[in-house]
């Protein structure tokens, strides 16, 4: 699997100019763009603290001693690389292709994930991947090597979407696997029980992970443009369908969907989780760029 099969050169060009930084401290193996919880030698002074026995003599700030006649040591903030894990939803609902054509939500999610992986590998951050439906089907721990990118791409393409999903349960299992704090990016349509989803995401938050939820939606799912007698066949459950007069359902559907979206946004807000909703009719790179730009400004 080559990167060209996932991202076009133009997309790669646009992504390469982007920079994803963590909003909070993350733990990494090497120095990078992101703040580390560890203190070490760095150009970034952090604070003075009173000398205790065992501190290296060379860390004593003699200028302060000369002024105060007390021994203080200088501490510097360590900068480290980011360990990001991309959790991509591979359930059947992600396979929906809108009535307006274009790509499916899953294809859109692949591109998003690939873009983020490409972006972070490019800035020396470690990127891992977890694909799931009813359970985690693929898990690649975060690596910062360039060759790891190929493995991620291959894993994304390996499994076509299908089957049911229960985000709460799956993400709860994934949280156990991510021991070091980092960035968790969930790419999904989030069609599930919102309270359970938020409960699962809270596990990441308790583990000091930063969580970014990228909700991928098809515009049909938002405005429900259907008319006439339609049989809606469930993409997740085989043999389940609903025969409806679509036009008569539109208003009720929209109301129901809006309520869901509000519940999801409120839940993310309360958990201090970034929620980025993207529709498949919009270029994913533009949306991603706009989000990252706003993220940097807020840092």
């Amino acid at each position, binding site marked *: 699997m080559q990167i060209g099969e996932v991202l076009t050169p133009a997309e790669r060009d646009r992504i390469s100019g982007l920079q994803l930084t963590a909003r909070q401290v993350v733990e990494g193996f090497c120095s990078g763009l992101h703040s580390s919880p560890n203190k070490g030698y760095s150009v970034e002074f952090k604070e003075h603290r009173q000398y205790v026995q065992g501190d290296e003599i060379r860390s004593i700030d003699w200028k302060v001693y000369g002024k105060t006649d007390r021994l203080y040591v200088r501490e510097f903030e360590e900068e480290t690389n980011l360990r990001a894990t991309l959790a991509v939803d591979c359930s*059947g*609902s*992600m*396979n*929906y*292709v809108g*009535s307006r054509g274009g790509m499916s*939500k899953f294809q859109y999610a692949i591109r998003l994930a690939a873009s983020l992986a490409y972006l972070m590998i490019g800035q020396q951050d470690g990127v891992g991947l977890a694909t799931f439906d009813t359970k985690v089907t693929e898990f690649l721990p975060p690596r910062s090597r360039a060759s790891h990118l190929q493995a991620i791409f291959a894993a994304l393409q390996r499994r076509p979407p299908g089957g049911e999903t229960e985000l709460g349960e799956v993400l709860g299992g994934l949280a156990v696997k991510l021991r070091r704090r980092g960035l968790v990016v969930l790419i999904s*349509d989030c*069609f*599930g029980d919102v309270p359970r989803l938020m409960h699962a995401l809270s596990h990441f938050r308790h583990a000091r992970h930063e969580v970014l939820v990228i909700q991928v939606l*098809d515009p049909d*799912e938002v405005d429900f443009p*259907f008319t*006439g*007698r*339609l*049989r*809606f*066949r*469930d*993409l*997740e*459950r085989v043999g*389940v*369908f*609903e*025969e*409806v*007069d679509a036009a*008569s*359902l539109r*208003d*009720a*559907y929209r109301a*129901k*969907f809006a309520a*869901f979206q509000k519940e999801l946004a409120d839940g993310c807000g309360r958990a201090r989780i970034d929620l980025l909703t993207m529709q498949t009719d919009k270029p994913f790179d533009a949306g991603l760029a706009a989000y990252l730009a706003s993220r940097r400004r807020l840092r």
Partner: protein
Amino acid sequence: MIFLNWLLALGALAFTVPLAIHLLFRHRFEIVDWGAMRFLESVVRLNRKRLKLLNLLLLLIRCSIPILLAFCLARPVITGWKSLPGDEPVAMVLVLDTSHSLASAIEGQSSNRFQRVVNSAEAIVTALPRGSDVILVTSAKAGQDDETGSMRGDPQETLATLQSLKIGGRPLVLEAVLSEAIRKLSETTTERRQIVMISDQRASDFSQSLMDDLRTIGERVATLTPRPTIAWVDAWKDLPAMENNRRIIRLEPTAAAGVPGQKVLWNVEARLDGDAAITTSLAIVVDGESIESKPVEFRGGAANLSFETVFERPGHHVVQVALPAEDGFSPDDSQSRNFIVYPPLEVWLVDGTPSDKPLQSDTDYLAIALSPFSLAGERAVDLFRTVQVLEREMDAKKDSHPKLVVLADVGTVSPTTAKWLTDFVENQGGVLVCFAGPATDGELWDKQLLMTSGTPMLPMAWGSIENASEGTAGFKIDDKVLTYPPLASFAMEAKGTLGSVDVFKYRKLTKRVSSDESKVVMRLQNGDPLLVVSSVGKGQIMQVATTANDRWTSLPRRLAFVPLVQRLFMHLATGENQIVTPEAGEPIVLGLESLATSANPAAGPVGEKGSTTDSKNAPAGITGKWQVSTPEGVVVSVPIESNQLKFTGTYASGTYRFSSDQGDVAYSGINVPEAELKLTAVEANVRDDATNRIGAIRYASVTEYQNDDSTRRFGRGIWRYLLIALLAALIIEPFVQQRGARLVS
């Protein structure tokens, strides 16, 4: 259920169109692979059941629309389980009330109730299926023996008959018309049979005896197989307005009969409903010709007036008075009265003990009673002309042909006289009246006065003289029961004028074994006969047990004596009693004797044709061919049967003119039956009881009957209900559709 336009019912198959559309499109969905099913499910789940029901309801409504439309156009009719097809011929007896009471006008309309009856009958007959058998029975003629009592034919013939139907005849006799209807209906062979009766249902038509008869009729109807249905249609409906109705309630002559040239005074009494002061005129018609018009002024609702008539010709006459038919009910505006004018009847008074002194002879009182005016020297206006004759002179005077011979206390008669008397009574139809007395010798009478057969002529044998006890007033007459027609009005219940008469002496009358014709018409209170009448040959004999004068009885000095003698002798001489005027539906019977006086006025005045007296005083005129001209202008031949001229077709009121081919004429009037003049509706409970007794169904109008009959014959037309249902379906369909959409959302 049947369809009047059954081909259109096939249009109901159009219901398959929405059904097919439903079934075809049921599985014809555009499939969408959908991810956000959870939102769709939550929306659909809530209303899925209701949606299915609504869809089913919508399908039913859409299917029902073409069905309802097709059925509506096909005119469906719900029929009873056992009902026959509507075009099955019917045997119907149509009983119509044609009595005079239906002449009352309908308020606000030009027609009267009779016209409404006819129109109703026409509507019923017109609606009958082809091939039906209609028997028309009218109240005017029902129960009569002749075949004119009913008419049988097909509906078209019946319609033609109805067109010519006229009001009149006898009152409605429910028992008679229903019996006639059942009898006629039982002669039919059609399976479906009906009796439809249209009457005005007045109170006078319902008596208690009728109610008993109706129960019997109901039982008879129940035995008929198949049982006919009886429909009773009320033609009365609304009470006629009787304000300002004028009516003649009495027309009476002051004399029971008259003689030519006699002035007869007539009294008329008229009434007006309400107390309005109205002046109108009264037309006086004699023998069908108007002779005078007198003004009538109603005051306090009543008017009385008198007029005189003079009949120059003996015979049957009719006097009719009539008010202008300006009110809503004409039958009571006129009234007729028959009147007979006799030629003077010669009576021989044979006195057993003649005397020159006043009132001492046996026959003096009789002479006064029989011809009071003649004795006063006035113009001969008495019905009887009395001639005093001695017993020994009778044979010599026999050519003068007396009508009556009175033997008062005649001891015995000579053989010559006895022979003449036998011929006089037996062959000439003469009347012999024998009064008892002290001189009467019963044995000699029985030996000499014999019939041609040899048996004694007198109905009873003279017996011994019975004397009243001393100190008592005398024997009393039993006036409790007096059934002999001329005596009926003297009965105690009527006038009681004979109760004070004393009979001091009388000869006991003993009935002979061979005398079967004798009839005791008056008795004493002790049971002994006082007056005996017997028919002998063509004539009659009256035997009186006491004297003709006041020697043995106080009767000649009583007020009742004159009318008693007048009526007795008139009855014996003419066969007439009180002259009655028949009512419509009753026969006109003119007796032989009456016709003789009309056709051949033997004893004096000249008849219409001016014939003279023949030698035998025989009723020669009645031997010709007679015909009658009715008030409706119909001329009908009238046969002579049993010495009587009898005509039963008295349908209309008015004057009937009888005439023979020999120029003889007689008149008789016909009045509207008195019961027909009482316009009072029967009480509802009585009417309903009568209806139940005969198992009939009562209808307030012919329309109501026709609707019910249509239901019974054809079933109940339900297209209107289907139309309503169709409109409802058309209205409900979009509503349900909208409702379904609203439920879903």
